[in-house]
């Protein structure tokens, strides 16, 4: 089938099989930040934005994104730059595999709620699993970033 998706600001027309997953489609178009993790909708590694909202690209057909705006971390470097250093300072990314999904969902959290409490951060990022860190480093990193921003 024929689809047209705006990927990181660029209109792409493509022919896809009806069962093509969005994760495979964005990776085919060079967005390797999007990682295949659990493939059961649990881990958040494959997070992309569709029309500005975070979704799991491993569980969405490319066809459902037809006519929509899709963004990956490749297209959001500037927005991410603000806070990723604070997370790195905590050594929170360790192996780094979960990082792009985690950064994407943090961008979404901060757009929706620029000054979240610790509990709101935990609740919003509950769908991003990390096998290395135990999450405390990420929480400290975001908290330090918010404290710095609000100074």
């Amino acid at each position: 089938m024929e689809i047209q998706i705006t990927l990181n600001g660029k209109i792409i027309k493509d022919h896809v099989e009806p069962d093509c997953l969005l994760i495979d489609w964005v990776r085919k178009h060079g967005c390797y930040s999007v990682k295949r993790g659990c493939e059961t909708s649990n881990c958040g590694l494959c997070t992309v934005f569709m029309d500005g909202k975070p979704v799991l690209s491993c569980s969405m057909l490319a066809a459902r994104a037809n006519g929509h705006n899709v963004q990956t971390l490749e297209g959001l470097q500037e927005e991410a730059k603000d806070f990723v250093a604070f997370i790195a300072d905590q050594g929170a990314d360790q192996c780094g595999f979960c990082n792009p999904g985690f950064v994407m969902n943090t961008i979404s959290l901060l757009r929706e709620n620029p000054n979240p409490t610790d509990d709101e951060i935990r609740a919003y990022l509950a769908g991003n699993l990390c096998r290395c860190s135990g999450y405390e480093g990420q929480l400290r990193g975001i908290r330090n970033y918010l404290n710095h921003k609000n100074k």
Partner: protein
Amino acid sequence: MADKNVNNAIDLSDLGLDTITETETEFSIGAMVTLRQLELHEGLNTYTQNAIRQAVCDIVGVQFRNMATVGGSIFGRFGFSDVLTMFLTLDCDVELFQGGIVSLEQFSQMKPDNDILVRIIVKKTPGQFVYDSMRNTRTDFPVIACGVSCVNEEYRFSIGARPGKALLLRDEEHILKDGLTENNIRNMSKWVAAHTPTDSNLRGSAKYRTHLIDVFVQRNLIQLRGE
């Protein structure tokens, strides 16, 4: 996504079924409305005193709730469903493309077929609603899900993740007719626990679930009383 051969798929995404419309008397919730839309909808959450938000807020994560639809959740009639458990506490109908409008309670007992769920209609019948669930970890399936409501002065107890699909019970023996006293609440929760079939799976045993039902019905009734 599972590996499964699908011969005939129908795409409902672009049919305008992704909105919640509120009138004086009801909410009309399109089948493609996401769980996140339910979570954030002011009108629905004001009407249900945040019970809907409470029912969906631990389903996987924000990204998942931005995709999973209320239509898929209700049509699936999954045993673990927080969504079905919650909606059964409401005065609620579903509109089926072929089958027309039927009550959700009736629909929940119908056998799966090839009909299409078009929308869910929640009537604004005056009521109070409380929802809670027990989970081994935050984003896991519930071990037990429990919605309690008092709609038009009728108490409803919806128990899901038994692990069978949600079951709706009413106060058939008028245990609560003299109000929500400590004693009545205790007798009611024991009655609901005794009348709800449970089973065991890897998340919990039947006996544990029965015990949880007793605890959660009590807690939810106490909350419903306004404490």
